[in-house]
């Protein structure tokens, strides 16, 4: 059993899956994780600063992002949550789609 603490709560949902090859493929995966955590991971991996505009960062996200391409990574997070992004140097701005 793997534990993680999300927002002061112990979460046991995610199990370590031997078939999950994500750790081999240079990527991060999540199951039912708030967007905030996902974005933190993204900041660490690509060494960027992420700003959000009127975005609900409590939305639960399942999936993952690649470590190879920042655009593909950003798309796989923003598209499901109906968000858009802009890259300005080392800063990424995430906002609601269509705004």
């Amino acid at each position, binding site marked *: 059993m793997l534990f993680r603490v999300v927002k002061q709560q112990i979460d046991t949902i995610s199990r370590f899956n031997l078939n999950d090859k994500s750790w081999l493929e240079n990527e991060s995966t999540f199951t039912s994780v708030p967007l905030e955590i996902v974005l933190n991971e993204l900041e660490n991996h690509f060494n960027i600063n992420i700003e959000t505009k009127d975005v609900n960062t409590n939305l639960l996200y399942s999936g993952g992002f690649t470590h190879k391409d920042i655009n593909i990574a950003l798309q*796989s997070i923003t*598209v499901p949550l*109906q968000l858009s992004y802009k890259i300005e140097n080392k800063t990424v701005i995430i906002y609601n789609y269509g705004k």
Partner: protein
Amino acid sequence: MANKKLLLLPFLFVFLFGFSQEKIKKIPLQDFLQETEKKIDVKFSFSVVDVAEIYISKPKNANSIAEIIDYLNRETNLQFTKIDNRFITVSKLNKVISICGKVLDFINEEPLSLASIKVNNSDKGITTDQNGRFSIPEIFASDEIIVSYLGYKPLKIDALDFKQKENCKIIYLEEQSFSLNEIVIRRLFTSGLQKNSDGSVTLNTEEFGILPGQIQPDILQTIKVLPGVESVDETVSNINVRGGTNDQNLIIWDGIKMYHYGHFFGLISAYNPYLTNKVSVVKNGTSSEFSDGVSSTILMETKNDLENEIVGGAGFDLLSADFFVRTPITNKLSVHFSARRSFTDYLNTPTYTNYFERSFQDNTVVSNEVNETETDFFFYDYSFKLLYNLNENQSFRANFINIKNNLDYKETYQENNNTIVENSNLTQENVGGSFFWNANWSDHFSSEASFFYSNYIINSSDFNRNSNQLLRRKNEVLESGFTLKTGYKITNNFQLNTGFDFNEIGVANQTSVNAPEFFVSDKKVLIKNALFTEAEFNNQKTYARIGLRANYFYKFDLFLFEPRVNIRQKMSRNFYTKLEAELKHQSIAQQIDFEDNFLGVEKRRWVLSDENNVPIIQSKQVSFGVEYALNNFQIDITGFYKKVENITVSNQGFYNNVQNLNAVGSYTSKGIELIANQKINNFSAWLSYTFAENDYDFDVFTPSVFPNNLDICHSLNSAINYNFNDQFKISLGSVLRTGKPFTKPVEGNETLQINNRTIVNYDSPNQERLPNFFRLDASVSYNFLFSKNIKGTFRAGITNMLNRKNTINSYYVVDENDDDNTLRINNTSLPFTPNVSFRVDF
């Protein structure tokens, strides 16, 4: 039958079982995605809320990732997009779906073609095809579709709502009447007869079933089945609503006020029922938009939609042949045309003979002792309509109608050993036109500007060849009017209608003789202006329309204020009450002449009010009713009280000694009307009963209060209809009512000498009563398809199956052989009269 049902049971079980099996197979989408991730080297990214609660069945033939994505895109409302070899995004965003639908009219479920389908906030859009269908292959799931059609309430539908399996979504559009008046009973008596929230009854000819004795949906014959609507002499030119004379009905055809509406001098309606789409009858609580017609308002409307393919039909019965065609010219322009002509001047059928005798009994045409006669009678009517839609919000309509009856009569007889030849001719004609401009300026505001023109002429000439004497009479009405009205919807339940009305009527009466030269002509013109306003409210529980009309007559410097009230309240699930009240007036009325005016065929002339001898007729009426409806059973009971003032003796026409007096009086009609209607599968039965009392009050008579000419105490209409299947229908019905009053001469002193003339010495009017009227009618209808789009209909009807001799009127003449004696003349109703019709519609 029972066996068949038992056989069906196992199938039903199999079906239900199969259906529940289908349900069990579905799994949460999230599980399916995880499974796929395990099988194929992919990763789905999604928002947890989007995927939750979605269940799918596993794809059967999808193995590759491309196939799976395809399958998921089809089955779900989510967009699956492969962003690289491994990552697949799952999003509501940019979800592309294909949609299809079918647009139908809410009431008659007819497809609406050329309806506009627009994607909101984009320039994407298409129109429906001739079957009302449309499809858009690629559209975002988040899009909103706007379905609109001229004259209908537009609908906004989320694209996702289209996502139904296999079948295209059916969209019903409701006609935007800018009126809150709705249909409350969809099927009264027979299909196509509907009742509205304001108590008015609408006849939709296209959906119309059959009524006993009728071989076509004869518009004016049909409304006589309604309680409170009588015709004491069986003709459509004499419709008596709640005890009022015929001239107290306001009859409007596509905005044109009509003065002549029956062929055969009244036996059949002059309007092509296949082009007339809707007929509404209002007995009380009229909208303030309408003036005149103190007893009723009968509104006829032809089809008002553009066509996208040619629609037409042709038919004949034993009197006439007719055809109609509705055709598109361009996308925005359509033309409707209809014509009917009798072939009575070429061919005598039994129907014609009966109708002829009924129409022309006891007048100069058939009563003379004639050696040789030649009659030539024909009627025709045609109408024309142009429909142009400028855009979705503005439309123009132009209408034209012409109705004509012509009778030529030649008689040769012997008088003092001389052969005398007389040629007579009678024509009755109404020509009319109207123009409408309708505009919706916003969702809340609409306007209508309209103009109409109507010209009625009846002409008779009586030519005596031997003496070379020609007597001509003419009665002409020329009316035109302009109306501007606006509707402002304050909320969805509440709206204000306001308008202005300008109206001019001219009436001419002429009599001329060539030798000795004699000419009398009388021509009057009356101009009337009116402002009207009303508030209309409808929230499913309460319908209320409260209005006021202010009329002004320049000539008399007279204002008439007329409040109009119409309220219907839901008391419980199946129970309603209603209240109607109105004040109305009319400035034109018919005068009945007993001289052989117009050859004695049509004895009525239109005359205009002069506020002198002929005052403006004014009415007040109130009615209260209850309605109960449960499934297929309906019952409706209404009590009414109506008082009409300023009627004249010559307007009513009495057989009495003072019949030429211009005495002014009133009548009061009160009664109870009942409708009961029950439908069980293919069988329906209805009953309409009126109990009424109708008395005049004329000071010049003793007693001053006496029964109205049209006082029918009990009147019962009933019918049963049975549909064997969609093709074959029969209808059987009866009319039973009290006989109308009539006047006898003074017993023992039957005649009177006045200036060398002997006349009948009538007693107090309407003290006697004719025997009860009873008639049994039946009709059958059979329709079949020649081909996919061509339909044939055969109908046969019999009026007065029992060939009962009903006396509908009695009066007296001085016996030519004995001046002291009188003879009673009885007018009888139609004898056993069969008629058949056959028509083809495409």
